[in-house]
């Protein structure tokens, strides 16, 4: 008689323990999915900023063919990128009698991981800037 009166409570606790166990395992999996989504979302935001920044760099660089001057203009007009992002540049210049053709490759890395890279170019006439404007 004594055992039968305790049974419902015991069942409740057993169910609770099993549910908690199941919930913990499922929760761990779901949490990792959430963390992954959050990481992806942040990475996407960074990449989006880098792409917009790259566009501005390419547009300004094509006018002056000078990396330092370009970065000065872009950072003053559009703001700086996140400090965690490191920009590595590779600039090649080839001169002919009339002007200088410059090729700029930028590599953006974050925590040692390459996130974006692109190449743009400029042609500047000797003794002055491109005559387009």
């Amino acid at each position, binding site marked *: 008689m004594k055992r039968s*009166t305790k049974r419902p*409570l015991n069942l*409740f*606790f057993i169910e*609770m323990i099993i549910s908690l166990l199941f*919930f913990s395992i499922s*929760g761990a999996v*779901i949490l990792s999915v*959430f963390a992954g*989504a*959050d990481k992806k*979302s942040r990475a*996407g*935001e960074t990449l*989006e*900023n880098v*792409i*917009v920044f790259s*566009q*501005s760099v390419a*547009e*300004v660089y*094509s*006018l002056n063919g000078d990396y330092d001057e370009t970065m000065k*203009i*872009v950072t003053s*007009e*559009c*703001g700086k990128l996140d400090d965690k992002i490191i920009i590595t540049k590779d600039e090649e210049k080839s001169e002919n009698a009339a002007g200088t053709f410059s090729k700029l490759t930028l590599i953006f890395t974050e925590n040692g991981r390459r996130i974006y890279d692109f190449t743009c170019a400029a042609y500047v006439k000797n003794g002055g800037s491109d005559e*387009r*404007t």
Partner: protein
Amino acid sequence: MRSYKNTADTISTVGSMLLFLLFAVCTMMIIVTAAGSYSRINDNYTTDFTASASIRYLSNKIKSSEKVELSENGMILQNGVIANIIYFSDGGLYEKTVAAGSEYELSGGNRIFELSGVEIKETEELYKITVNVGEKTSSAIVRKGTE
């Protein structure tokens, strides 16, 4: 003895109900947190999408136009016999296509993006596009393609 047993049963019942309640509250809190997290990620996505898509749209429009004319709240892009009028009004970016040379009115266009603000500035050689979406501000530079 019977009274003691009744009291123990009552405590046990109330205890299990409290435990259930605690469990239910914790579960609800977890669901609300998850919903908040989803909402934040989705908002970020919407903001990023609107900001980058509108900047790219405006840049590509400028790059593909023969003549660009800036006005107070927008710009007029001419391409042959067609002129595209893109303007900001009432929390959105609007666009309409009219015949080139006709009267350009910044009204009656189709809403293409929901934005908080757009600013297009012109320097000697460049256009600077600034787009505000909520609290996010994105800026991009586009060079002038033609004289």
